[in-house]
């Protein structure tokens, strides 16, 4: 399994760069992952989403879809796309250090 080094420690990730072990994630890692995803600075609005992703993962075992995020995170789908232009659910999951959200079929 590949590893990537964030904030000085090596963490296991999948082929697309998603954390496979969310317990290895720390907040300081988020800034670096965000930069690699093309987001220069993480604002408070970004952090609302990132924390929400982690809570949802802890509760449900998968990150939410964009539509569920828009309904429940307090950030609208429109704003989610402004914050994470390349696809909020996937980008926010990556920055939040959780596995790739399992979409529905």
């Amino acid at each position, binding site marked *: 399994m590949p590893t990537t080094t964030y904030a000085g420690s090596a963490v296991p990730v999948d082929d697309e760069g998603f954390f496979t072990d969310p317990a290895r994630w720390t907040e300081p890692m988020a800034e670096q992952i965000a930069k690699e995803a093309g987001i220069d600075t993480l604002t408070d609005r970004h952090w609302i989403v990132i924390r929400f992703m982690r809570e949802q993962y802890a509760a449900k075992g998968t990150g939410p879809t964009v*539509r*569920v995020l828009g*309904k429940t995170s307090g950030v609208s*789908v*429109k704003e989610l796309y402004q914050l994470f232009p390349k696809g909020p659910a996937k980008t926010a999951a990556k920055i939040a250090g959780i596995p790739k959200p*399992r979409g*529905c*079929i």
Partner: protein
Amino acid sequence: MGKHIVILGGGTAGTMTANRLCRTYDDRRECRITVVDQDDDHLYQPGLLFVPFGLAQPDHLVRPRPRQLDAAVDYKQARIERVDLDARTVHLAGGIRLPYDVLVVATGARLLPEETEGLTGPGWGEKVFTFYDLPGAVGLHEALERFEGGRLVIDVADLPLKCPVAPLEFAFLTDWYLQRRGIRDRVELTYATPLDAAFTKPVAAKALGGLLKEKGVELVTEFTLGEVDGERGRLVSYDEREVPFDLAVVVPLHGGAEYVERSEGLGDELGFVPVDPHTLQLPGHPAVFAIGDAAGLPASKAGSVAHFEGEVLVHNIGRHLAGQPLDASFDGHANCFVETGFHKALLIDFNYDTEPLPGHFPGPLGLPLLKESHASHLGKLAFEWLYWHSLLPGRELPGIGSAMPEHGKNRASA
């Protein structure tokens, strides 16, 4: 005192479940079964795909709901208002209360076109349509007959949606229809999807994406519909890409029934019931089960899935009523005929863990999987008869059980 099983929804899943339960509990003193639905028209939904092309007559797709139910079932026509899980009671319109010993939620999925900006605005019913309900499919038939050329786009707004292959089938049939009318070369055909490929799983995505290409349909991926601008004829995604159109066929957002959202503890954010994916039981509420499109499962929302779930559900209800631990387990089995035009179709068969693979179904001598054939087209057409006469009455199909068959599948190409 007998037990009372209440089934909410008398569509595909609710009807099959009620009829299956009747066969298991033929003594009404032991067990009473009530089905509730808000209207009396049972619609054969797979037929909606054919209406826009003039291949199915709308009035042939609808039959009276109560007539599909075993005579022993108590049918109530009423709108469901709310479920009180603590009091084990369903509240119906008109102040009627229905206490239950076992509750089966089978109220399906609801279309939510008004949740997408502009979708039901200018152009709706004129050049923007859905074929996911009967009036939409009929309107689209007229619009297609009038259509003389231009840009035709088929768009899936977002997941989940029922029958995830139906929009692809629509694209294939549109190509066939336009060729038959001799105007295919005057039409730019586009398929836009929120997925990153034509379908969810890699092997099927490749096969179905290949078919789109073969038929000259442009594929636009990762396109989550944010806005429909009917006046200027544009679909706009949330990441601000645009797909222009002269005629748009949109599959709107889906949610669960409204009352699910009003019933504390019953539904998730989208109004689906988050039951255990293997037992179909609501965690924390052992007397409550969900089946069909109403269930919030990582499986397809399709009639075939409801059929396979039914076997597990009826068994588990029996175990629950007998005070025994549940032992039947649903594997996510789904089975869909994908109509591809020109009197051909292809078949896909998969479950939670196994993606649609090539091979044969239900065994090595059966129908080809993931490959177009005339036999599968005949299978798709025969399905309507089977639906009314075998599936709805709750009969098992010989040789086709709930568990996904393994033999006949070609794993080497996965």
